């Protein structure tokens, strides 16, 4: 489904990604972890077209993603969320999701007034549990609700591959719980890649984990395999464990 080969990214002489290979088969829920500066977000940026790699290939199905613009990649079925959620505060929750769901329509047809709510939107609202808030403006949502809205917008796009960048960062325990459940349900019928720091969350929901370190893939495997790996322990525990793996504020 998604195949990265020897991806390299250089920022002003700094090698953010140094030859990453990554294969994610269809239907998998993959976690990406690694200490700060390991290149997790950069990897997501490369896949979604935000950052152009200096070398390497990114294949999604039969498409080569390198060199395509962000919106073109979305149109191929790759969607993402952001660490700091960006939703459109002046629009209502419903409008936010509706906008996400409508991108395949031709531009001129958008000029018509929206009537009713499409199936994709209803579904996204239901899955994220935001039905009650549908008519509220997105500006009044709490941090957790915003993340759910982001995920809802992502679902409404009906993507084949979802990339979630730290979906539970800054959430309360309760919210974490709900997000985790949401995630598992989504993973049932989607391919998902999650960047996450939170080990607890990881243990509970991850199937396969890829550990990045200094722009390279360190190990890949199940949660048990990975946490047992001495290199991972060195990377994380060699320094202060809490510093690297702990919950970020």
């Amino acid at each position, binding site marked *: 489904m998604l195949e990265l080969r020897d991806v390299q990214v250089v920022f002003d002489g700094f090698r953010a990604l140094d030859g990453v290979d990554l294969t994610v088969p269809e239907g998998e829920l993959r976690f990406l972890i690694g200490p700060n500066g390991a290149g997790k977000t950069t990897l997501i940026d490369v896949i*979604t077209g935000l950052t152009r790699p200096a070398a390497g290939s990114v294949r999604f199905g039969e498409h080569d993603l390198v060199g395509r613009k962000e*919106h073109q990649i979305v149109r191929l079925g790759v969607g993402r969320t952001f660490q700091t959620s960006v939703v459109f505060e*002046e629009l209502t929750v419903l*409008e936010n999701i509706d906008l*996400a769901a409508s991108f395949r329509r031709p531009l001129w047809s958008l000029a*018509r007034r929206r009537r009713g709510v499409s199936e994709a939107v209803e579904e996204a609202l239901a899955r994220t549990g935001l039905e009650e808030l549908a008519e509220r403006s997105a500006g009044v949502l709490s941090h957790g609700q915003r993340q759910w809205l982001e995920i809802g917008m992502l679902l409404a796009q009906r993507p084949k591959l979802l990339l979630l960048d730290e979906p539970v960062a800054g959430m309360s325990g309760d919210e974490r719980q709900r997000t985790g459940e949401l995630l598992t349900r989504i993973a049932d019928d989607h391919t998902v890649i999650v960047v996450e720091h939170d080990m607890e969350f990881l243990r509970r929901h991850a199937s396969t984990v890829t550990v990045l370190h200094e722009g390279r893939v360190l190990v890949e495997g199940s949660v048990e395999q990975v946490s047992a790996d001495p290199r991972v322990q060195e990377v994380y525990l060699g320094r202060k464990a809490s510093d690297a793996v702990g919950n970020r504020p």
Partner: protein
Amino acid sequence: MIRMLRRNLPFATVAVIALVAAPLLLEPFRLGLLAKYLCYAIVALGIGLVWGKGGMLTLGQGVFFGLGGYSMAMYLKLTEAGGGLPDFMVWSGVEHLPALWVPFANPVFALVMAVLGPMLIAVILGTLVFRQRVRGAYFAILTQALAAAMVILLVGQQGLTGGTNGMTNFFELFGQDLAEDSTQRLLYLAVAVVLGALYLATRQLVNSRYGRLLVAVRDGEDRVRFLGYDPALVKTVTFALSAGMAGLAGALFVPVVGIISPALLGVVPSLELVVAVAVGGRHVLAGAVLGAVVMGYAKTAFSEQFADGWLYLQGALFILVMTLAPKGVIGVMGRLRRARTT
């Protein structure tokens, strides 16, 4: 049905005043002035769309207004010349009608070009600029430079455009004598109807998904990319729409006022229109329209009373609006109203 009526009641009231009361009550000279303000209001409507909703601050809207005006003026000049050369070409030493001018003898072509010409330029500039993600202040400065460059270009091509003088001395439009008060009244009505129709259309657009998308592009252009839309396309289309409106306004302006000159499309008039929109209230389309009419009227009134004060007033008004009432007159009214009801 009743809801629709209630929704449109204010619009209907304004429409009746504009279409019935104004032509009956105002003397021809004042009606002409009002027609002029309404032309500006059409441009302002476009600015309200592109800046208020789309967040693109265009300081070159005068260029599009001017291009529309020049298209119309070329047609009027050619009818007046009646097969000969327009007067300014004679004294500029031009001997044959330039090829560029020939098709403008056709009124339909001239009117279409008045709208399409500006849109084309907006599409070209928009594509070049937005695709490279040049935005915000950079875009504003570039449009301002466009206005400056366009003025110099028009002034420099005296044989083609009439230079600094521009074009004036028009006698008839579609066979109607422009000097007649009745013609001027008809023109006023035409301007008012066009403004009303464009207002309704723009309001519809703003309330559609497209309008939501535009606001989304304004507030988070990069995020919109990840919703699968191309913000450059959305922005370019919007910019072109506003350019088309400005062009149409220019085409209407010329027979109403009887002159088009580079002075109308430079940096200052372009900025003045933006000021008007800000004063009226940029977040609401009605605010843009109101602002253009009010500022147009204020300018006339002030320069009739004490000319020197106009710059002070305009400057001060602007500083006040931006610092104290960034939502403009409409915003203040809204606040007052809310204060009263609660």
